């Protein structure tokens, strides 16, 4: 009797989901956000289709406000043989100069939510892989692995399909689409232990290093480029920090840490006392049920 571990089983399930989508969807795409979950998802996709190249492109919905380190890894991945990377920036947001300093929630709405819809419609993608996990947030605990979206990309809790066994219903009418979450059953600890086991490359921002930061509204924000606007009384200082989640740099809170290996990061995480999404400003926007509202609007 072999002993498949929980990571083996999670891996096999994710690969099954990836293959099932490719077999049944007309135009699948993988949303590549450059974060650690995306890195794991991409790794699983390579495994799923090896020795063939990925049978779908990667899509990065860019906001032009990501960390420099993220762009560096993205461009490195995009340059690999067999990888077709599409970068989409919402032209309207670009023209209006939408930014996290002046526009608040509109920044996420226009660049991410609207940008994603545009890209999916423009290329006619009918199934988009996302790296969301059920353990991230309460409203995601009920998310399906194959999440059905109407032609206007809305998530309707009443029209989600029951998922039995490992049988997924990928059928849909023209215009309708699916978000597919191969990492649904992974936890943050699973992600980290898998990154270690498989030696998956991640953005160095996940590991602690001396970085230029300011403190704002109780969050430690990194000053990643010259566009950062200092408020009165704010002071740029160098602190040893790392990030638990990565997004637009002015919206991502760092935590002070000396953990500069993945092992130490996991150690800190396990002994830590705050949950993962705590460092993200967007979840706080609307208080109760905010993620659920975003999901209904088409945000991942």
């Amino acid at each position, binding site marked *: *009797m*072999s*002993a*498949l*571990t*929980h*990571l*083996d*089983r*999670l*891996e*096999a*399930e994710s*690969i*099954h989901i990836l*293959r*099932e989508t490719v*077999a049944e969807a007309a135009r699948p795409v993988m949303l590549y956000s450059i974060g650690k979950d995306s890195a794991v998802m991409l790794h699983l996709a*390579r*495994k*799923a*289709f*090896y*020795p063939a*190249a990925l049978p779908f492109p990667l899509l990065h919905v860019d906001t032009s406000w990501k960390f420099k380190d993220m762009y560096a890894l993205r461009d490195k991945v995009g340059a690999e043989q067999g990888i077709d990377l599409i970068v989409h920036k919402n032209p309207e947001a670009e023209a209006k100069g939408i930014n996290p300093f002046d526009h608040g929630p509109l920044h996420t709405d226009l660049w991410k939510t609207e940008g994603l819809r545009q890209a999916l419609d423009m290329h006619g993608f009918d199934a988009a892989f996302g790296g969301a996990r*059920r*353990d991230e947030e*309460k*409203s995601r*605990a*009920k998310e399906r692995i194959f999440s059905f979206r109407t032609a206007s990309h809305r998530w309707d*809790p009443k029209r*989600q*399909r*029951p*998922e*039995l*066994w*490992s*049988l997924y*219903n990928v*059928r849909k*009418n023209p215009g*309708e689409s699916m978000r597919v979450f191969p990492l649904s*059953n992974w*936890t943050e*600890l699973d992600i980290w*232990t898998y990154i*270690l086991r498989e030696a998956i490359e991640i953005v160095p921002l996940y590991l602690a290093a001396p970085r230029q930061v300011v403190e704002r509204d109780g969050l430690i924000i990194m000053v990643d480029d010259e566009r950062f606007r200092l408020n009165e009384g704010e002071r740029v200082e160098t602190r040893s920090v790392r990030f638990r989640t990565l997004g637009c740099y002015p919206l991502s809170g760092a935590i002070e840490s000396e953990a500069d290996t993945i*092992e130490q990061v*996991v*150690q800190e995480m*396990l*002994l830590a006392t*705050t*949950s993962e999404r*705590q460092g993200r400003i967007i979840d706080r926007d609307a208080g*109760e*049920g905010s993620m*659920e509202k975003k999901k209904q609007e088409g945000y991942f």
Partner: protein
Amino acid sequence: MALPNASKYQAGERDLIAADISAYLAKQTSKELLRFITCGSVDDGKSTLIGRLLFETRQIFDDQMAALEADSKRVGTQGANIDFALLVDGLTAEREQGITIDVAYRFFATAKRKFIVADTPGHEQYTRNMVTGASTADLALLLVDARKGVLEQTRRHSILCNLVGIRRMVLAVTKMDLVDFDREAFDAIVADYRAFAEQVGIAEWIAIPVSGLTGDHVAGRGEAMEWYEGPTLLEHLESVPIDSAADEAKPFRLPVQWVSRPDQHFRGFAGQVASGSITPGDEVRILPSGRMTKVARVVTMDGDLPQAVAGQSVTLTLAEEIDCSRGDVIAAAKDPPHAADQFEATIVWMADEAMTPGRGYWLKLGTQTVTATVAHPKHQLNVNTLEELAAKTLDLNGIGVAELTTDRPVVFETYRDAEGGPPNRVLGGFILIDKLTNATVAAGMLHFALRRAENVHWQALDVSRETHARLKGQKPAVLWFTGLSGAGKSTIANLVEKKLAAMGRHTFLLDGDNVRHGLNKDLGFTEADRIENIRRVGEVAKLMADAGLIVLTAFISPFRAEREMVRRMMGEGEFIEVFVDTPLDEAEKRDVKGLYAKARAGELPNFTGIDSPYEAPEKPELWIDTTKLSAEQAAEQIVSAIMDFERR
């Protein structure tokens, strides 16, 4: 705010994390995975118990704890205490209603195992959610309020879990704190459940007295219930056998998901091993074609594997270039599954719109998608009592047994394992999909195939029945003449065959007399032998129709059921029943072979019409009244009907 006792359970783990993270992480990679479902309602303390499990295994961070404390004060139902239920209720609307209305998945882990918990609501109107959550579970955690005992709901949940093939149950008797941790209260509930479990055939179950509020017997033992000597809930969850391990002992099956063709030299078949194991060099059969070959390699990105086992997603290459595509099943050559196109199944209806018998639905089973029609249910199941009720259709949350027919053979296994192992989820479970809305409308579990003949579908056929028919330039059909002895079946069938032959048709006449002298000479005239006689003739007629022939059969074939059986063997519209209607007194008067006289004299027992019944067809395709038509006229009428059939 009364904070629950801090967890001691994970203290050892945390020490290791702090002292030697590498050693800890090494342990993390060797955990097992157990999936279970929780059944019960918020009233039974379900959410409290799950919340307690998450808390005890440190899945709750301080910020969540702080939010929980605030929420508990605001909307909690536990007074000054932490309301763990708030941790697990998800969507805003549900939280306002105070009930969970969907399946939520929770995760926690101990040093030995990672757990995936399907949390489903308990009310009857959420049967579909429970079945969904149960479909992947190794175990069911049934909650019973110590104050209320085993309720109808408990029985329903047990029946549903048993139906979906969960073999192991845990009866968690909750809120023991509210009955002063009383042993007698617990024992009474256990005795009650034991009687029920025996009745419905639940073999493996254990009862554990717990309190989600105080945490007793969830992770730690506590002092309040020293009379209980069994394992705590977590101890049990950590040690109970896992289904997926038992799947490895079954014969090898891999439903092909995707064919990998990166270049001309590589052709791999990707899929997740449903059961068994495979090693390069092993003989396999590709179904439904039945072709045999050997496995050449087990390909993964990490290098070729010496073996693949149940649960793994791999890519196989085969020793020979063989037709194999998505939907096919690669199986152990010596022990392959069967293929069939008619089944009996348990169906759980999951859509607001009721089932429409006769309508075509997509049926997805493994990686196969076919069109299926469902007959009127044989019965509907009362999930509270297991009572079988008559039903014309199935409504939302209705569970029934029905026959279904697919438009082509499906490679399958019976859902329930014959050896008592875990259910054959991959090749025995299916969903039905509405062709218009694409919604998943039902889940089903196959019992068995209705036509055993189809099970022997392994022999690969290079020349198909369509090819045979095309070569002969005709439409195959079976003209089934039925009627009393001496009705004129053989006479008319002979005339029909002559006419068809004159028109250039390829035909063959199977006659009661010629078959009984050879193929069926071992059969007599008892009811059982008559049924077998017709079955064999039906099989031969089917083979001949497969060969492209127009087959004429002339048999008394007195029983309606057997004629229907033969009808089902043939393709749609290919079975043409010809009722040669001659009244008994007329046939007896003619008595061409002198058989009626012998029968009347008692020399021929079981003679149709005399001491054995003849069940006349109710709706034959052709009705020949021999008191009004001559044999020649009858033959002409039949031939013209065949011409009509060919034009259709």
